[in-house]
């Protein structure tokens, strides 16, 4: 599991974990993100059960265990949060922020100790040591209850499955040639994203945000103009299409 620092300022740091060359072949490679503030941390889409040991080991190199106070699951998928049962044993006093829609489903992953903070459909804001992290609605992209995390100060949008691409584990961290990269995203978005209406509404809202980096849960990070290129590409893409890639 590799760790990259994406952003740093006096109040907080953004870290990305991923490109795990030790993960079993058959599971999809995922990017995990963490915001570290003075006394707290928010671990976003902490990943599957298969990844838990590698993730905890990577995280504990950055912060002590008792500083991982908050978890976020953008939606209910196993690659997002099937590790919950183990985080529940490791961090019994942590809070999990996740869509209200999925609470009774996500609890199936095993949650005896962690506190579930249900995000309402319209989203809300988490304040960690004065740092604002906004949970932005991204419903039906792809999950019917789904959120992104936006940090207006770092100008980072953690976009979950939006912007995802299936890539080899040694792929570069950032998008280098957008048109080349778009080929790898096409099938994923057409097949997994069910609603053009939801997609276009999301594009309209995200255009109003100041986004310097868009960080998906699979594949590469979009930087600067590539964020805008992605929004244009996504807007023009017809989704909810049954294809085999």
């Amino acid at each position, binding site marked *: 599991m590799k760790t990259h620092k994406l952003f740093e300022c006096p109040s907080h740091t953004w870290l990305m974990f991923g490109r795990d060359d030790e993960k079993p072949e058959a599971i999809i490679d995922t990017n995990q993100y963490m915001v570290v503030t003075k006394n707290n941390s928010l671990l976003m889409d902490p990943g599957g059960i298969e990844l838990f040991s590698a993730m905890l080991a990577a995280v504990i190199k950055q912060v002590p265990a008792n500083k991982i106070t908050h978890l976020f699951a953008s939606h209910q998928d196993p690659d997002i949060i099937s590790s919950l049962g183990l985080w529940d*044993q490791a*961090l019994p006093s942590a809070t999990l922020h996740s869509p209200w829609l999925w609470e009774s489903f996500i609890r199936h992953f095993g949650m005896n100790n962690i506190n579930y903070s249900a995000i309402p459909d319209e989203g809300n804001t988490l304040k960690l040591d004065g740092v604002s992290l906004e949970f932005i609605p991204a419903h039906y992209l792809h999950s019917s209850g789904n959120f992104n995390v936006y940090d207006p100060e770092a100008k980072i949008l953690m976009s979950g499955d939006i912007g995802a691409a299936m890539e080899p584990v040694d792929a570069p961290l950032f998008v280098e040639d957008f048109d080349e990269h778009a080929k790898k995203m096409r099938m994923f978005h057409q097949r997994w994203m069910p609603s053009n209406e939801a997609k276009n509404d999301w594009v309209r809202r995200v255009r109003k945000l100041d986004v310097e980096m868009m960080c998906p849960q699979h594949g590469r990070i979009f930087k600067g103009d590539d964020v805008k290129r992605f929004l244009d590409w996504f807007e023009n893409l017809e989704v909810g299409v049954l294809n085999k890639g």
Partner: protein
Amino acid sequence: MTDLSQNYFVSVAEIAAKLDQATTIAQKLSLTASNARAVALRAGERAAGFRPLTDFIDRLAEITISSSKKINQMAATLSQTSAEKVRADGAIKHFNSVYKIANESPYIDSLDEVYERCKSEQDRLEKTYRRQIEQLSEELETLSSELRNAVILATLSRVEASQAGSQYQDALINVADNVEGAAGKIKNHIKYSQQMVSTLEEY
């Protein structure tokens, strides 16, 4: 006899299933008792000695049903405990590998508190698990000894049946056979369960 499972919480579920079958057999035994009572009534004076035996058959059926239910409940609780134990064992295994991967981490000590807490939870579950197995084992033993009475009951039933006259003899001997057969089947289930429990004790 099917092979004993290697996985302990599957074994627990199998015990519950076996005892469920025992309950079904005991319910049939209870039917046998009321049939026997009807036959004995028709046989009149000559089967007077048989009538109190039907009460004993009834009592045996009742004890078996209530004890099977109790064992079933115990197996369900044990199954819950063993599932929790599997989770705790799994977590400990994961933490051990984190210690290995992240041993040079500046915050590795912060894991000690987490580890200690999970370890003591694991110990608690281990103790609960042992205690529950012991209770289950005792209850199985109790039911097993109750069933020993079934053999005596069947023998006495045969003796009384021979006094009842040729018209009713076959029906009453049939009752005795049923009691013996049912008790034998239940005993086999219990024996199997006891073997399962003894494999659980090895964990």
